[in-house]
């Protein structure tokens, strides 16, 4: 029999500590939508997405109601569009983005991810067209998210792609200058991108995945922080233990919702992504967990050790709670989406160099970083190159979601609104990297890739 204590603990987690299911994402394969005629291809894409996901929002709401757990977002991810659109002769893929946007609008979901290309070894014609279409595609749609994978541990880093992505990011920012460069908030550059990530903006449905599946992204930084408040001053073994147990409970909820959604939608269950994903809401911050561990401000010395412990304990607790774990599964450190991060940057405690170091021990990378509007494409490319190197050499996923906010300088603040939050503009190293980026070519795969 459940004890009253347990029931009240669940109540508290949901109502006071911001426990929620961050997203149910339906992954849909569009491989069978290929067609030599662009209009026919887009029609097939539209029809399949609408058919597969038509009940997603309704089922999400039903589960929310029955289990009493908020499900914040319902989303769709698709096969990287470069792979599908390549079957037709169209010169650019902007209309494909608009088709996805239309479907997303009619389904009532909040984002559709997968306007993507995988170019870690090199480009195909389809990849080229997709990447050049990204700025316009993101500027002319609301709900479409794009991503480009430019590096893997096995392939090394495609520095031609890295150079191009710096330019693409600048162009996307320029086209959406009136909204603070918002298009860049929907674009991710990856190393070792996962095929089943349910979170945006980097979600796409990889080629090894089934025709359709349900992936769930959980969340609960507030719950972890509140659990740690009860063990102030205890040693790190105790801290790790508390985080593990809390992560278990949070993940079990995600597993339950995923299995239920899968059953009701008649679609296989894919994975639960164990990421601790913050929101700008008070009490929902990863940075505050680190500060609760004893750091005066997130970003000071000790931050990396704290984050390493947190990331590891979340995985250990969560793994037991779910039958299949995947996606990014680790702590997120998106600057604009975390109240504690925003404060740490504004108070001069958190720098881009510290964030880069933090990405070595947690799952996401440089996420929602706003930089001055006059940052050059080459500098952006160099920042990407650094992150890709961390990912490739350490055999982990890293990513860059960076926004050069037009007209803004270090110290300014950009309001994106909603889940995308508030971006304090961060300062960068004043020295350039253009000769480095101009070289192009490929950085060879690191020796650790030879594991056989």
């Amino acid at each position: 029999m459940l004890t009253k204590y347990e029931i009240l603990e669940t109540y508290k987690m949901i109502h006071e500590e911001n426990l929620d299911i961050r997203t149910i994402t339906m992954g849909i394969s569009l491989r069978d939508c290929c067609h030599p005629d662009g209009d026919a291809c887009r029609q097939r894409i539209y029809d399949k997405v609408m058919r597969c996901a038509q009940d997603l929002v309704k089922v999400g709401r039903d589960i929310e109601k029955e289990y009493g757990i908020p499900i914040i977002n319902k989303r769709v991810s698709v096969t990287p569009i470069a792979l599908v659109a390549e079957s037709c002769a169209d010169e650019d893929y902007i209309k494909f983005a608009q088709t996805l946007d239309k479907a997303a609008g009619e389904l009532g979901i909040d984002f559709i991810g997968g306007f993507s290309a995988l170019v870690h070894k090199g480009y195909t014609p389809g990849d080229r067209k997709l990447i050049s279409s990204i700025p316009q595609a993101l500027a002319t749609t609301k709900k479409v998210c794009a991503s480009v994978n430019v590096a893997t541990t096995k392939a090394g880093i495609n520095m031609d792609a890295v150079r191009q992505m710096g330019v693409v990011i600048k162009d996307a920012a320029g086209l959406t200058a009136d909204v603070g460069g918002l298009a860049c908030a929907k674009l991710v550059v990856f190393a070792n991108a996962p095929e089943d990530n349910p979170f945006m903006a980097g979600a796409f449905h990889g080629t090894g995945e089934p025709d359709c599946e349900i992936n769930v992204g959980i969340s609960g930084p507030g719950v972890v922080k509140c659990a740690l408040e009860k063990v102030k001053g205890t040693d790190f073994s105790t801290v790790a233990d508390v985080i593990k147990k809390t992560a278990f409970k949070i993940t079990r909820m995600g597993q339950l919702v995923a299995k239920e959604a899968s059953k009701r939608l008649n679609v296989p269950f894919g994975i639960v992504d164990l990421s601790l994903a913050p929101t700008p809401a008070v009490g929902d911050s990863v940075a505050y967990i680190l500060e609760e561990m004893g750091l005066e401000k997130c970003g000071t010395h000790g931050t990396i050790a704290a984050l390493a412990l947190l990331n590891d304990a979340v995985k250990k607790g969560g793994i037991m709670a779910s039958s299949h774990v995947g996606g990014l599964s680790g702590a997120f450190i998106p600057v604009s989406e975390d109240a504690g991060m925003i404060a740490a940057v504004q108070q001069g405690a958190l720098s881009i160099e510290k964030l880069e170091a933090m990405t070595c021990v947690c799952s996401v990378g440089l996420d929602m970083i706003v930089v001055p509007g006059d940052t050059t494409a080459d500098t952006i490319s160099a920042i990407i190159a650094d992150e890709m190197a961390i990912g490739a050499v350490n055999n982990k996923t890293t990513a860059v979601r960076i926004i050069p906010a037009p007209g803004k300088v270090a110290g300014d603040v950009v309001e994106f609104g909603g889940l995308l939050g508030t971006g304090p503009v961060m300062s960068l190293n004043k020295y350039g990297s253009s000769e480095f980026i101009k070289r192009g070519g490929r950085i060879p795969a690191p020796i650790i890739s030879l594991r056989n």
Partner: protein
Amino acid sequence: MKAVVTVLGKDRVGIIAGISKILADSNVNILDISQTTMQDVFTMTMLTEMADSDIVFSELSDKLEAEGTRMGLYVKIQHEDIFNSMHRI
């Protein structure tokens, strides 16, 4: 299927009566109740069996929430699995 009803709020006359009536009217059986009042805060959890009830879950949920609003309390009914999955290995 079993569901857990949670009631929280300021103690007053008629709470158990009000909630039980809605459950009885929908043929939902109360299997177990646990209730405490600490200082002024009333806390009650009920394990209920819905198998013999014809009512649609969301309709019962709405009725209970409305009763909660009427009495100034938090009232929620949830499938028991959410608690089982979190608190049991």
